[in-house]
């Protein structure tokens, strides 16, 4: 080995800086990030509160709007309608999702991969789709209309059925996670003590997943009570809060009353958000690091029973999707059932034709690109930045906010905030930019939490090492942190894109003459009685969402295999 003389070691010059430029830049960037979140999340929501206390002409009205609302039996009835419909949908959804999740995690039934794929398919559909399928199945000219024994699908029955379909995968994912996090040794201990299966279920299984059950119920209830698409299509004359907001704001131009209904809608959403967060925290603490993950033993009777039950649920889910797919290909329901692409000739049924699909793709791509960059940079500044601690904490809290805000409320919030003539961003109204900004804000929380989790998993000393080597932190971010987070960035991109395609609730208030998107076109065509083309447009959304998911999955595969050779041992 050669000696390294001190001479060579001293040869590398060291630049010195008196001012901590890096810290300054971080502070400025963090302030900028906080301002952006202020404008796209906090201020619009504040506008809803302000509007609720204003008269129609903008003067201060005190509680007048609220007294008017609660004094109006027709409006107030919607509260009760929404609560019991969402409650019933929650009970059914969580019950079915529990059976399905139990089958996936605690049995050795066959066909789990296929069943799971079918079970999460509703995530890729706009919520109008199950409602349209229900119309084809049970509507006035429905295939199996008789099954309802004279009852109408338009109203609570259709609402509950559509909501169960729409909420099922959300409840399922939470319960699968809860059931997966079980400690095998608890079961071994119970069996070693000669406990009967029913008692094991009651004393080990249920207590282990009770937070998961609470979380699933809270999420389902929020989704159900705030959903717009199902209520719009099969709600009929059965009024619920979501459709009331729409009618007040779009139908009657009564912004103040819309704001009051929006605030009422915010209550269950915020409550369930708080419950979910608490449940998540408890759930995570429940499983110790040394636990052994549960692995089910084969049991032919149990496995068969669950295969039949889960199979039935999957068939129903597939029929709901398949009904719209089939109906969209039929020439003239129910008179001419020959196959045709006539429903996909959107120009015949809607003034905007196919352009709303292109608008959706621009919105999706735009929201995904802008959202991924914004979310990652802000999450990076919060987790790894040198900005002021208090500000970073504040951003963390604000980033959680959109999760508790229903799309409808965010939509009217944007109307109230950006439509004010005094707002310098007023020029954005009606353009694509405001749709993109709104979509980014709408889906901000999940994207932020995903980025935060990925960043937290990265060694916290990278920044210290890079400082000691006098490499500016942004270089280390670009050279190390971003490559490490690439799979996360891709999945945030896919999440933003697919959700931008399927959501309608906020966009229905914000689109302009040139920016109608596909999900809004579904509602418009359904409203106009063009159910076939509405189903076709809903299917186009599904195909696009599937394509986005396939492409991002492919990208991730490529990244893991080829581009990031260092991941292999």
């Amino acid at each position, binding site marked *: 080995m050669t000696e390294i003389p001190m001479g060579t070691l001293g040869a590398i010059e060291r630049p010195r800086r008196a001012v901590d430029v890096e810290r300054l830049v971080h502070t400025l960037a963090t302030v900028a990030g906080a301002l952006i979140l202020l404008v796209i999340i906090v201020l619009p929501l504040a506008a809803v509160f302000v509007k609720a206390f204003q008269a129609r002409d903008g003067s201060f009205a005190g509680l007048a709007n609220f007294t008017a609302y609660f004094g109006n039996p027709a409006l107030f009835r919607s509260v009760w309608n929404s609560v019991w419909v969402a409650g019933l949908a929650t009970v059914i959804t969580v019950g079915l999702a529990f059976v399905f999740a139990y089958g996936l995690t605690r049995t050795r039934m066959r066909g789990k991969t296929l069943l799971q794929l079918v079970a999460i398919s509703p995530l890729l559909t706009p919520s109008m789709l199950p409602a349209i399928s229900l119309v084809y199945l049970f509507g006035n000219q429905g295939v199996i209309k008789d099954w309802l024994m004279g009852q109408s699908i338009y109203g609570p029955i259709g609402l509950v059925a559509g909501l169960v379909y729409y909420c099922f995968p959300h409840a399922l994912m939470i319960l699968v996670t809860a059931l997966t996090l079980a400690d095998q040794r608890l079961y071994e201990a119970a069996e070693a003590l000669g406990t009967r299966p029913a008692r094991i279920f009651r004393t080990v299984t249920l207590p282990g997943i009770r937070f998961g059950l609470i979380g699933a119920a809270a999420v389902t209830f929020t989704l159900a009570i705030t959903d717009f698409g199902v209520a719009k299509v099969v709600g009929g004359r059965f009024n619920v809060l979501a459709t009331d907001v729409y009618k007040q704001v779009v139908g009657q131009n009564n912004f103040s009353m819309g704001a009051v209904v929006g605030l009422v809608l915010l209550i269950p959403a915020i409550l369930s958000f708080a419950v979910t967060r608490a449940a998540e925290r408890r759930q995570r603490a429940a499983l110790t690091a040394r636990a052994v993950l549960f692995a089910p033993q084969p049991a032919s009777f149990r496995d068969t029973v669950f295969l039949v039950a889960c199979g039935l649920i999957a068939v129903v889910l597939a029929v709901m999707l398949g009904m719209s797919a089939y109906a969209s290909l039929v020439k003239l329901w129910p008179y001419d059932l020959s196959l045709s692409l006539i429903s996909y000739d959107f120009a015949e049924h809607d003034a905007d034709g196919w352009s709303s699909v292109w608008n959706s793709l621009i919105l999706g791509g735009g929201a995904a690109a802008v959202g991924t960059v914004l979310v990652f940079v802000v999450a990076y500044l919060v987790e790894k930045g040198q900005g002021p601690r208090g500000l970073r904490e504040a951003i963390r809290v604000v980033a959680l906010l959109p999760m508790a805000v229903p799309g409808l409320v965010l939509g009217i919030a944007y109307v109230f905030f950006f439509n004010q003539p005094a707002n310098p961003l007023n020029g954005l109204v009606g353009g694509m930019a405001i749709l993109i900004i709104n979509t980014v804000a709408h889906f901000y929380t999940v994207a932020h939490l995903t980025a935060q989790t990925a960043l937290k998993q990265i060694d916290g000393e990278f920044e210290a090492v890079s*400082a000691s080597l006098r490499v500016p932190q942004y270089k280390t971010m670009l050279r190390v942190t971003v490559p490490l987070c690439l799979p996360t960035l891709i999945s945030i991109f896919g999440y933003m894109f697919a959700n931008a395609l399927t959501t309608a609730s906020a966009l229905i208030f914000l689109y302009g003459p040139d920016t109608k998107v596909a999900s809004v076109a579904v509602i418009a065509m359904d409203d106009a009685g063009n159910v076939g083309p509405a189903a076709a447009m809903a299917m186009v959304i599904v195909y696009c969402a599937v394509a986005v998911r396939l492409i991002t999955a492919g990208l991730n595969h490529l990244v893991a295999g080829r581009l990031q050779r260092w991941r292999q041992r």
Partner: protein
Amino acid sequence: MTQPYLVLSGIRKSFGAIEVLKGIDLEIGTGEFVCFLGPSGCGKTTLLRAIAGLDRQTSGRLWQAGREISTLPPSARDFGIVFQSYALFPNLTVFENIAYGLVNRRLAKAEIKARVDELARLVHLEPHIAKYPAQLSGGQQQRVALARALALSPGLLLLDEPLSALDAQVRGHLRAEIRSIQRRLGVTTIMVTHDQEEALTMADRIVLMNDGRIEQVGSPREVYGRPATPFTAAFIGQMNVLSGIWADGCARVGAETLVAAEVPDGLGDRADVTVCIRPEDIGLTANGAAGVAATIAGLEFCGSFLRLHAAAPSLREAPIVVDLAPERANGLALGPGMECRLHLPGDRLRLYPGTARP
């Protein structure tokens, strides 16, 4: 130590209401290898991070090579650092990791390559230069981290528990290697560790910390042989700690009277006194009238020595720990229940004023 390389003066650090460093004064000489040793939570890592500028001190000042660095950001200070986690960039090869700081200096490619090769040779990593960190063993990863920290030839090398994630054999080997590289380069080095054996074998000087304060600074021999406080005495190595009363120039412990060769200042008559003696300093005989009567309560075979627990009712309730070399023990035919005599030589007794903390 002619002129101190690093001077710390009155360093305090609080996290909220909790004060983690309670006034640290320290001088470290050029080329010295110093270990910060102490139990977890004593503030040793916080002190290291304050020296690096990663967690700035709440108050107090620091000078490095004659320059005040108290308020400088880490990037304007002069140090290389190795963490317990190594913090190697997983998406970069060994070469790219070592070259990470050099690339930013805008050196010529050939110059960088020559420097990285030199460093790779220094830490015996030449064959692995093109591999990624995930393909290396823990010990090899540690060497990469060391080479990377040394790449810019820092005046100060900071090591934060660098060996605690490794298994015993690799750890022993790396100890010697780090020490030899440090000597060769003459780089002033501070290592944080909670492992007293590591500190005793590697350090020129040990800074023993407890509860945000420095308990003792000294060479390993001094700290082990002449612990300045009961805490040092009990923390480094095994120690029997006895409580007694100071009376007539002797320590009264239980029914026994112990005479120490060295007596600290400030012991008043009837004052509490703590008496410490290491297990290997206690003599044991099978019979005779001299010494403290005891019964062997238990034996532990510890490889190079035999540890026994002897109940000596006249000294205190808990058993006294005695270490015997195997050749001594063989002649005694020891077994549980055996009666014996303990001898506590006066020149090995260490006395401290006050009652020892439990």
